[in-house]
């Protein structure tokens, strides 16, 4: 995937006298600890999602189930750029975001199976999970709705005068929803601290970006609102983290919103029931072989002799154990008590 890192907009360039317009930073080299942490974090998401796919096939998970496999570097790298109190919000492809925000794998998996130990007591399911404690605001099932909500989180930050940033995720598909632009306008007008992370995985369900979007460079989508944007190689966790740090600094300095177009790819279908006839097997294989975010980190770790194959296998085993434990819990935990039907409707 070509990574066109460059200045976002001529307009913001011209405007940015006091605070220079954001430029996509060069991917910073990771320390050994950072590489290992990113490797483990991404691997946990990958293995978790593979297991979720299995459990879906076995009938333990119902309804819709959207897997994040292939996109792991995006949430993992951005989380490395966030500080305590920064909020995250996304749409329904949300399992990876929750794991990155350190929500319990048991809680997420048990929610997928609709059990009482699930993060939403089994009442939300795959698409609807939240954690006030970890500043994760969902998990939203309506394409684009989370963009206005995430803008509202940023409004609350500005209202309270805290230093936090709302990291608001949406996809290339949601980028065509009207309320996204209503939100852009208000966020820019009021200088709200929000990072709009557009996860461009090339397909809005089954419709390619080229077939759905008049402007396929999503970093330009804020131009009319004077929101700068940059394109980022979303398969390289280092590039994501560097862009995230630049963006959070931009927001914390009071410059208002910024767009990060994360160029990424999902290996699986839109949801479990998607046969993915709209793209070739070769396209998917090529991405997996050449761009895989986890393999990239693994190669560097081996190359720099920061970890041996055995040590990486040990990490893999540890991650698989966590996922197996979560899956076991999610299959054996009881369904919610029937009394839960009538709770949590109003306070």
């Amino acid at each position, binding site marked *: 995937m070509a990574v066109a890192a460059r200045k976002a907009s001529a307009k913001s360039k011209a405007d940015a006298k006091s605070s220079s317009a954001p430029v996509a930073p060069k991917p910073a080299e990771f320390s050994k600890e950072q590489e290992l942490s990113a490797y483990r974090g991404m691997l946990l998401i990958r293995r978790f999602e593979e297991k979720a796919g299995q459990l879906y096939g076995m009938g333990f998970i119902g309804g819709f189930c959207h897997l994040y496999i292939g996109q792991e570097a995006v949430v993992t790298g951005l989380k490395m750029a966030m500080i305590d109190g920064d*909020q995250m*919000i996304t749409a329904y492809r949300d399992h990876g975001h929750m794991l990155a925000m350190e929500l319990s794998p048991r809680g997420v998996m048990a929610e997928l199976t609709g059990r009482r130990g*699930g*993060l*939403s*007591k*089994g*009442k*939300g399911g795959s698409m*609807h*999970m*939240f*954690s*006030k404690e970890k500043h994760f*605001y*969902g*998990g*939203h*099932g*309506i394409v684009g*709705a989370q*963009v*206005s*909500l*995430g*803008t*509202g*989180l*940023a*409004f*609350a*930050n500005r*209202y309270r005068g805290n230093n936090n940033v709302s990291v608001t995720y949406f996809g290339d598909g949601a980028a065509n929803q*009207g*309320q996204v632009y*209503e*939100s852009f*306008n*208000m966020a820019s*007008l009021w200088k709200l601290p929000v990072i709009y992370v557009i996860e461009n995985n090339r397909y809005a369900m089954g419709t390619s970006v080229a077939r759905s979007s008049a402007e396929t460079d999503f970093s330009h989508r804020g131009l009319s609102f004077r929101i700068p944007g940059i394109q980022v190689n979303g398969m390289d966790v280092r590039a994501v983290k560097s862009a995230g740090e630049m963006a959070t600094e931009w927001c914390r300095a009071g410059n208002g919103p910024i767009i990060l177009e994360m160029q990424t790819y999902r290996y699986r279908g839109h949801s479990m029931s998607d046969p993915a006839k709209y793209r070739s097997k070769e396209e998917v294989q090529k991405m997996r072989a050449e761009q895989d975010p986890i393999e990239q980190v693994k190669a560097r770790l081996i190359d720099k002799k920061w970890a041996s194959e055995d040590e990486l296998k040990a990490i893999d085993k540890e991650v698989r154990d966590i996922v197996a434990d979560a899956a076991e819990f999610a299959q054996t935990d009881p369904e919610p008590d029937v009394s839960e039907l009538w*709770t*949590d*409707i*109003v*306070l």
Partner: protein
Amino acid sequence: MPIEILMPALSPTMEEGNVSKWLKHEGDKVVAGDVIAEIETDKATMEVEAVDEGTLGKILIPAGTEGVKVNTAIAVLLGDGESADDIGKGAAPAKAEAPAEAPKAPAEAPKAPEEKPAPVAAAPKIEIAADPDIPAGTEMVSTTVREALRDAMAEEMRRDPDVFIMGEEVAEYQGAYKITQGLLQEFGERRVVDTPITEHGFAGVGVGAAMAGLKPIVEFMTFNFAMQAMDQIINSAAKTLYMSGGQMGAPIVFRGPNGAAARVAAQHSQDYAAWYSHIPGLKVVMPYTAADAKGLLKAAIRDPNPVIFLENEILYGQSFDVPKLDDFVLPIGKARIHKEGRDVTIISWGIGMTYAVKAEAELRGLGIDVEIIDLRTIRPMDLDAVIASVKKTNRLVVVEEGFPQSSVGDFIANQVSQRAFDHLDAPVITIAGKDVPMPYAANLEKLALPNVGEVVAAVKAVTYRS
């Protein structure tokens, strides 16, 4: 022939105003476009421009006069060769047909049309039953619904720094209907936020802020525009508490005028009470009196759930007694007996109450003792109060302005038939707006809305008096 200058209607619902200032004096020449006077309504001060050329012959209504009815002659303009002596000889008839003003319900007081309505008492005189939530002996102050709403917001904003208001024209313009008058001056632009015209977007921003723990009041200029924001209200605000297993909700108030105003036709005249009442996770409040507007809005702002607060433009200017208390908060979900009676129950809420109250006055003359229940909250609904009244009177009529199919009244009738069937001496009659989009023409609009005659006829039917 001298031309009479009439008191203009400056908004769809204006019925009267004050002549605050004359900028031209008797004997002054005026040409079309000259500002000749300033008119003041409860919402705004507006300039009156001359539309004809001539000499201001006589000022009929002096500056400072209050309560001047729309279409009253306020001055006379003389043409070439005319003098003040000509006034009264052949002036164009002042009794215009009121083209700008529909004979809306509140204007249509059945009695005492000559009575000079000072800032309009809501309806015919009726002893409003004491609200048990107001301590006996509390001093009452006559207040408009508009002022009551504003006071409620101001008091809650003083009390809780997390409360703020956002919406179109709420700040610098002082509110499209002047409900937020003075709030910007007191609380500043951080807490009184003008939004762009983006209902879907700012409803979502409000819900997001609420999820983060703030307590937004989102004003819709009218609830007709909230259709654009429906997804955020229903899918985000109402459902998050449940979907999160109780971890996270949205303490937010969506408020604004709802239902028909006057002569604004189909897209601006719709009652959403039944729509919102359908949704678990929402509370839906629809007050009639100023006291309820104040006490319930304060409760709505404090409520940890999303509350839909349905106001009515026609009620904004009406005055009611409001208790003078430091902190007057009413319980959401509790109906109020507006007038006690024995023979038949009329249930209504919001603007629907105006029909009920007028019908009661007429029926009293026929010896029918009506009990009026003001539901005040549509969800959660105080069905116990409804059932208790039906058990007493055995007859029920429900009045609302919304569309008839799947109406709030239908739900009430259904619940009464299940819970109090053996107590009914007649079928429940539900009166609603007609099953048509709201027409513009004055006569058709009047037909599309419920009217007092229908309520009277329904009560006669259920009491078997024909």
